[in-house]
């Protein structure tokens, strides 16, 4: 499998990467979801994890968090196994839907980011209000800090969870499909916020998405997943006809228009004559990997 890994040879090997994924294989229920995945991220990078539904994006995030058993390979944070470095990671799941009955305000949820894993009495002592306020400020959440989280809009709930993840000042922030179900305005607000976190706070952000376009202005790195394999690099080395066609095992076309990128299956009329050997399915509607 040839993935155009852009620059790993040039980087010094003595300073461990912030996140390093090497030879990762994951199987779920006997089905291979990720095969031989290699990539790494450094401090202060915004990386997009692009792929269709079922390509294994969420599985990869869960593997990094240590929630998904790994068949082979290693995941390291600053050179240490990621499962021991959970404190360095913040996670924002895709499905956020709090029960409206929850008697928990945004402020309380953010505080649980600090104390949520504290057993014993130490969770009841110490002042957290400064850290909570800072995290709320980072997501512009002061306006709804005292409202129940179950009664916020979807976008507000998402920002509340981001603040919950940020309050411990993680080095790596993982967001699962944060742009799904957002309108144009909220999408841009969120992307600007993520860009600010990367540039100013030097947090590394890994975002899964099925569309890379909204992220393009701030994107440092791209992991393109398809059929359990990945192409890794910066946008221009990865998003090319040849690279993606090889990844999909089916001819695809990359279109550029005013700085936006569109990945399309090749014209179906042409595909009828030159189907790729061994891969007869089309990209559309094929959700498994």
């Amino acid at each position, binding site marked *: 499998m040839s993935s155009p890994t852009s620059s790993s040879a040039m980087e010094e090997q003595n300073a461990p990467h912030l996140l390093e994924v090497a030879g990762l294989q994951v199987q779920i229920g006997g089905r291979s979801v990720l095969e031989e995945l290699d990539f790494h991220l450094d401090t202060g990078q915004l990386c997009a994890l692009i792929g269709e539904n079922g390509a294994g994006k969420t599985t990869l995030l869960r593997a990094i*968090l*240590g*929630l998904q058993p790994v068949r082979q390979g290693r995941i390291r944070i600053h050179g240490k196994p990621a499962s021991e470095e*959970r*404190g360095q*990671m913040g*996670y924002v*799941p895709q*499905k*956020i*839907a*709090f*029960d*409206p*009955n*929850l*008697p*928990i*305000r945004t402020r*309380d*949820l953010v505080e*649980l*980011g600090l*104390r*949520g*894993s*504290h*057993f*014993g*009495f130490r*969770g*009841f002592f110490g002042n957290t209000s400064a850290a909570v306020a800072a995290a709320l400020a980072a997501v512009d959440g002061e306006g709804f800090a*005292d*409202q*129940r*989280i*179950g*009664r916020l809009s979807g976008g507000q709930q998402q920002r509340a*969870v981001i603040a*919950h993840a940020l309050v411990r000042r993680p080095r790596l922030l993982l967001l699962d499909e944060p742009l799904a179900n957002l309108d144009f305005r909220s999408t841009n607000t969120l992307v600007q916020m993520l860009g600010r976190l990367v540039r100013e706070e030097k947090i590394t952000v890994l975002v899964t998405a099925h569309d890379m376009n909204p992220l393009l202005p701030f994107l440092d790195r791209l992991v393109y997943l398809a059929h359990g394999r990945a192409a890794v690099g910066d946008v221009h080395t990865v998003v090319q006809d040849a690279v993606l066609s090889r990844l999909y095992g089916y001819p695809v076309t990359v279109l550029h228009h005013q700085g936006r990128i569109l990945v399309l299956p090749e014209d179906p009329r042409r595909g009828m004559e030159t189907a790729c050997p061994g891969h007869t399915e089309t990209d559309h509607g094929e959700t498994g990997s």
Partner: protein
Amino acid sequence: MSTGFQDLGLVHFLGDPTIRSALWIGTMAAMLNGVIGVFAILRGQAFAGHALGDISSAGGAAAVFTGISALWGFLGMAWLAALILSGLGLKRAGERDLVTGVVLGGGLGISALFLYLDATGSSHSGATVSIMFGSLFGIPGSMVLPVILSTLSGLLLVLLCYHPLLLIAADPDLARARGVPAGLLETLYLLLLGLAAAISALTVGAILATALLLGPAGAALHLAGRPAQAFLYAAGIALFCTVTGIYLSYESFYWFGGTAWPVSFFVVVLVLLSYLLAAAWSRTGTVPGRPALHGAKR
């Protein structure tokens, strides 16, 4: 209910050792069920809590049959059921309800058998009523101390795991991502639910135990604006219902010409009324962020 019904006064009410035992046990049941009930509702496990109460009746009946203390009977069966439910490890709500229902059926079947054996075997003809509908005034004083100790240890455990439990209630995914051992806490929580059900079964009877678990907590969730408030309100409402229920049952002896109405009847009615009041109150808009008209489906 043989002693202490000569006078109407509160002094005599509190002076009666039977009543004092009843008040102690009722207080413990109220506090534990109020607190655990909030978690039960937030995690959509009202049915599981109800099932544990019902199933504990099999233990209570077996205790009568074998002559051991009712508390250990209730508790043993509730914990057995809790361990079965947590061992099955069901995640999706619909599936969970289904299997809970089947386990509940099995437990009630066993309960039927033991109650039948109790009734046919000599002197325990009243066992069905006292186990299913409670007989708070018939509890021996020796049971008060074990109830207090087990309740306090239960509350202490909740306190020690307060933040992780709250985070799981908010969103289990967030908790797992934070490295909270969600599976372990799930089992612990089910055991606590079993303890709450057992002590509630002592107080108001096994098949009415749910009332103390769900009613005050449901009312508190209508009223509370922040986490700590919910737990305090729930315990407070449960306490009010239990103590008032005990008092009314005691007094009803005089109102209805020599037959006291059961404690559990008054407690359950008071719980229902407080839930309805809280639900109505939250609609007036004075409560911060009142719940939606149709609650979230789990």
